[in-house]
Each structure stands twice: as C-alpha cells, then as structure tokens.
C-alpha cells in the first residue's frame, strides 16, 4: 500500500499481476470453453430430443428411458465391463511386474527391452486392429502356426465364434497398452529409494515380499493413475470393436462407443439417442473414477 497521503485508487501490485495472469489464460480458456464445454452442453440438450436426422423434437427424458429397454445397448455395456474386469487387471499386473524386472540396476540392454515393450503403443489403432484381424483370420498366421505345430487339428474360427472373439480383443488390448502403463510404473519406481530394498534384504525379505510390501504400496499414486486411465480408455473403446471384429459375431464384442457410431451413421440417424448414450458413458466413467479416487487416494 502506498504510504503517502493520497488514497490508492489503482490496483495493487498483486492484483495487477493476477490480472496479467488471467489475461494470458483467457484465450486458451475461451477456446476450451467454446470447443469442449459448449459442445458438451449442446450434446446434453441434444440428448433430450428425439427424431431421425434433422427432424428433432423435444422429448425430455425419452431417450434415457429408451436406453433401459435397448437390449443391444445392454449387451454393449456388458461387453465393455467384461473387457474392463478382465483386461485391465491383467494388463496392470503384467505392466508392474515388467517394470520391476526392468528396473534392476544390473540388467543388460534395459533400454532395448523397454523400447520393445513400449513400441506397440506407437502403432496406429486402426493399423494394428486390422493386422490382428488378419493374423487371427481363418487361414491366418496364428491358425497356420498352430496347425503346423500340431497343437490343433482343425483351424479355429477365432473371430467368428462368440466365445473366442472377445478373447482376441483382450489379447490385442493387452499387447498394445502394457508398455504404456509400464512406462508410468518405471517412472514411479525411480522415486523409490534403493535403501528401502537394501534394508529389506538385510531383514531377510525375499524379492516377492519386497515387491508386495515396498513396491506396491509406494507405487499407489501411480497405480491409481493408471487404473483410472485404463478404465476411462476401456469404457470408451472404439477402434478395436470397429476394425478387429466390427462388433463381433452377433454383437458379442460391440462396445458402447461403436454402438453410438452405428446409431448415428449406419442406422437411420438417431442423434438424440446417441447423445444420451454418450452421457451414460460419461456418467459411468465419472462414477468409477470417483470411486477410485475415494478408495485409492488417501491424501
């Protein structure tokens, strides 16, 4: 505050600096609002309308009520949760084990191994889905190898059977995303002090015990982060469903996002209904993340 007799009608230095900060933030904030939040609001309004194509009329909660009766949507939700409950734990466990293994100080060619495991993440989603589809085709590579090795007598129709199609998607997802999560865990592991492991060794703990008692608890924030990201990603799964199995034999691998696309562009367009479905996904992800944060984050 000025100490001379005049009253200070201008802004304080703090306020000025605050305002400057806000001015710098304003363009980006406006863009985010216009490009992200405003369309989300518009989608919410759209989800309250019914009609085909451009003929939209106000329908209130009709679309949401309709969702309750849509058997295909229920199948899609079940598929998403199937992937969630099986693929995410398996992938995260494999990722954390790989990260621990690759964090050993005296391991040779660590960089090479880490790159090789991370490389799948750099592939385009569409490309790798199509390649997996070709691999597991009726006369594809996998069937050929298994037949030549004598493990199967007749070629398996991987993508044509309801039971195996889901498995292929899970395998594809694990192949692609394990490296990604492994990198997060590696970063988290760098923060764990080596002396803790030394102390454990001195106390007679084996590597497995050290893993469960030291590594996992200290990696908790990273595990929380990767779990939330994986849940988010799995609930919004789209590319694999479209390119690998095209919804799978009899909708058995159909995901919610794929069904939204179908409702908008393949069937007679029901945009209000599709918007309602997207909000259901949004709510599901929000609830699950919230639960995760409550359970996982002790801060």
């Amino acid at each position, binding site marked *: 505050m000025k100490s001379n007799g005049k009253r200070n009608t201008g802004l304080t230095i703090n306020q000025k600096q605050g305002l400057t900060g806000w001015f710098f933030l304003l363009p980006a904030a406006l863009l985010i609002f216009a490009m992200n939040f405003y369309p989300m609001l518009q989608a919410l309004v759209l989800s309250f309308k019914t009609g085909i194509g451009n003929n939209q009329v106000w329908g209130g909660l009709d679309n949401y009520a309709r969702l309750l009766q849509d058997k295909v949507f229920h199948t899609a939700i079940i598929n998403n949760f199937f992937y969630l409950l099986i693929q995410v734990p398996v992938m995260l466990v494999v990722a954390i084990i790989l990260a621990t293994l690759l964090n050993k100080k005296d391991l040779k060619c660590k960089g090479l191994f880490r790159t090789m495991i991370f490389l799948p993440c750099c592939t*385009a989603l569409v490309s790798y889905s199509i390649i997996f589809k070709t691999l597991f*085709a009726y006369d594809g590579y996998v069937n050929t190898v298994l037949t030549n090795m004598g493990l199967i007598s007749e070629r398996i129709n991987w993508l*044509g059977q309801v039971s195996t199609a889901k498995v292929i998607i899970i395998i594809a997802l694990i192949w692609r995303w394990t490296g990604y999560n492994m990198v997060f865990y590696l970063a988290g592991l760098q923060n764990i002090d080596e002396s803790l492991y030394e102390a454990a060794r001195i106390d007679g703990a084996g590597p497995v015990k050290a893993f469960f008692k030291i590594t996992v608890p200290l990696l908790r924030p990273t595990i929380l982060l990767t779990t939330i990201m994986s849940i988010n990603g799995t609930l919004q799964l789209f590319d694999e469903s479209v390119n690998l199995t*095209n919804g799978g034999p009899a909708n058995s691998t159909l995901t919610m996002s794929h069904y939204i696309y179908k409702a908008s562009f393949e069937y*007679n367009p029901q945009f209000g209904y599709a918007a309602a479905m997207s909000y259901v996904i949004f709510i599901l992800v929000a609830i699950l993340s919230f639960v995760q944060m409550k359970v996982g984050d002790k801060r």
Partner: protein
Amino acid sequence: MKRKLISLILSAVMAVSLVGCGGAGDDGTTAGTSTDTPTKSESDNVDTPASAPSDDAQSLTVWCWDSFNVDAMKKAGEIYTADHPDVTINVQETVSSDIQTLIQTYAMSGELNALPDIFLMDDQVFAKYLQNYPDVFADITDSGIPFQDFAESKVANSVKDGKNYGVPYDSNTVIACYRTDYLEQAGYSIEDLTDITWDEFIVIGEDVLAKTGMPMLTNVQGEPDLLNMILQSAGISVFDENGGISLVDNEGLKEAMRVYLKLIDTKILQEQTDWSGYQGSINNGTVVGTINGSWICATIMTTDQTQQEGNWAVTNMPKLNDYAGATNYSAQGGSTWAVSSTCDNFDLAMDFFKTTWAGSTAFYDSILKDLGAIATYLPAAGSDAYNEPSAFFGGEAIYSKIVSYGNEIPKINKGIYWKEEKEALGTALTNIVNSVPDLDNVTDEDLDNVIAEAQATVQFNIGQ
C-alpha cells in the same frame, strides 16, 4: 542476440510445419469403418463448384468408390469432353461408407454447398438418405433423361413420391459363378447347376466337397447377404408395404434360413472373416464359386488370368425348393448416381448424363469391354459388345445372359431400415450357428426365438 535469432528461426520452422501438417492429416481418420472395397480412399476437402456459371470453365465434381467405378465415370467424362472441351469432369475416389457419412454430416450441419455435383450411392441405402435428407437430392424427373430405358426395378430404387432422384448404374442381378474345372473334377457341368433347387444343389455340393475338398460357396460371415438373396428370389419380403419390419410369422424366412443353415452344416458354404478374405478365397481358388450380384465379375476377373481363364462359368442361382413363387433370380447391391441439389451446373450435369450414361450405347460397350461393368441401360443390351463371348468365362456371352436375368427378378417390399434389418438377421444367423449344435435339425422354436429377437431389435430401432 544469437539466442533471439535461434528462437526466431525455430518458431518460424514450427509455424511452417504446423501449416504443412494441417493439410495432410486426414488420411488415417476415416478409414475406420467398413472394409467393403479393396482400394484406399482420401475423403479430402471437396472443391466447391464454380460460383458463377461461366461458359469458359465448367466442371462437375463426382464422388464414387472403387477403381472400376472411377474409371467408368472418367470414361464418360472423356466421351463428353471430346465434344465439349471446356468442361472438366473431376472424379474423386471416396469409399462408399465415407460418402454416406459425409453426405449425412453436410446435411446435418446445413453445409449443402460442400456437396459434390454428382455422387454414387448404394441402392440399398438410397431410400434411407432420400427420406431422411431430402434437401440433398436434386429432382431430375423432368430433365429429359429417358428413365424408361432403364430396368424398372433399378429405377424404383431412387424414386420417391413419383419423382426421380437418380440415374441407375450397375446391375445388381444375382448370378452364380462356378469354377468349371473343379466341377468337372467331380463329374458335373454347369448345366447341372442351372435352374435347380437348393435341395438338388446341396446334394451336388456335398459330392463336390467329397471329391475335390472344395466348398461350393463362400461369403462373409455374419452378413446375411446370401439369405437376403434367397428371400428375394422367392419374392419373400422382410418389410411390409409400409416399410415396417415383418420377420415374425414369415414362413418363407424360416424356410430360407433352414436352407442357409444346412449349407453351413454340410460345409458347402465357407464363411470368411471379412470382405478381403472373401475376395481372397475367390482369387486364390480355394472355393468352387460364389453367388452374388453380377458386379462380382470384376473381382473374379482380377485373378491370375493364366490360371483361371476359361475356367469360370455363370448361371442362375438355385431356387427355394417348392416354395410358392420361388425363382432362380434375385438382386443384390448395385448403385445409382445422384445429383446434389446444390449443383451449380445442373443443366450441364443433365446434359452430361443424357449424352453418356443415359444415351450412349457406345459408352456402355467400352466400360463393359474394358472394365466388366454391366449396366442396366436396356438399349445397351442389344449391342454387339454385350453379345460378345467372354474368354474368361469359357467363351460364353455372359453379359447378355445377365441382362436377360434382370427381367426375371421378383419385386419385394423395400424399406429405409435395410441396414438395421441386415444386422439383425446377421445376428440371428450367428446366434443360431453358435448355439445350436446340430444345424440339420434346428427346431422351429429355435428359429422363432432368434427371429423374434431380430424383429424386436429392428422395431426398437424404428420406434424413434
């Protein structure tokens, strides 16, 4: 000073690279959906037509898929520009599903000016887009195009309320193509497969499978195209007169499904994972033949000429046993040219069509000879090219044969819910195949259950 200079140069490089990246970024994003066609596409920005129609530089932009169609349209363009040198026909290859998505997106956002002048659209979804987005299509009823010169069933695909909105293109007459060398190996000829019933076909098929190890037919799994062809061949409609779905209590449907399931059970029909697997099975000679729209000739003829030339033959499909109204003829697929309502050079487009697609038998001759594109323009069927024997198909004049089949196709009710119906039926078939162990003895109850579920699904999608 040096640091400022370096940072300035780096910023400039970044700005330039951002601008450069912006234009090329579209390729990967739209490839996601179907793999119907083997060729890649770039659904880039479309040139908007010239704002002021001037006599100096008139152009028409055309969207269509598949190199065959692109070449056909380019040929038409060449013929037209020979007489009108100031006109350019600009053909942009765009995958069929992309065309549909783009048309829909432009229509929804009101950006009708971004539409091309002419685009190709699958017959099966034409009615859907015509009904849901009528502002996209231009009325060409009174343009002077002689619609009576086209096969009636084809013209009907693009007619609404008595007005025409499209010029028919490729023939969707169903044909059965078989490898005569495999048939001979098993002791059969193509006559044995002409004008037969499905029961007779199954007997022959089992014999051929036993003697040559080759399945008679191939298709894409989960897609009920073959089932839909069988249904249409017997005049069985899955839609009622009002376009509503009518699967339940449809005895013809159950009989057709039983035939289809028997084909799978006896392994006469081999199902492929996707469209490229389907084409591969034909081109690699791992199946005896296929039943599909006549446009499949283009795929068949792309195989290694030396290996398969002369070893193919064309005939009609089997009929649905003794079902009343069963025939050996059906329709599948096909497409129609549409003109967009925002076409600036409408008169030019009409003149173009009248001169080439709806007026020149010489044009149809050339695309037939060079591209194997069979048309539905009736005057073309009388020309020499259509009666020329095809060396690939054993020296038979298949094109006139196919055009003659076109007259016998039964008419059925069509609706705008074709895609929903196709998926529901595909799901029904897959569910039965996966759940019933003995496909030869599928009970009425099993069929009724999956059909009821299919009907419920389609009705749910209709009830908006």
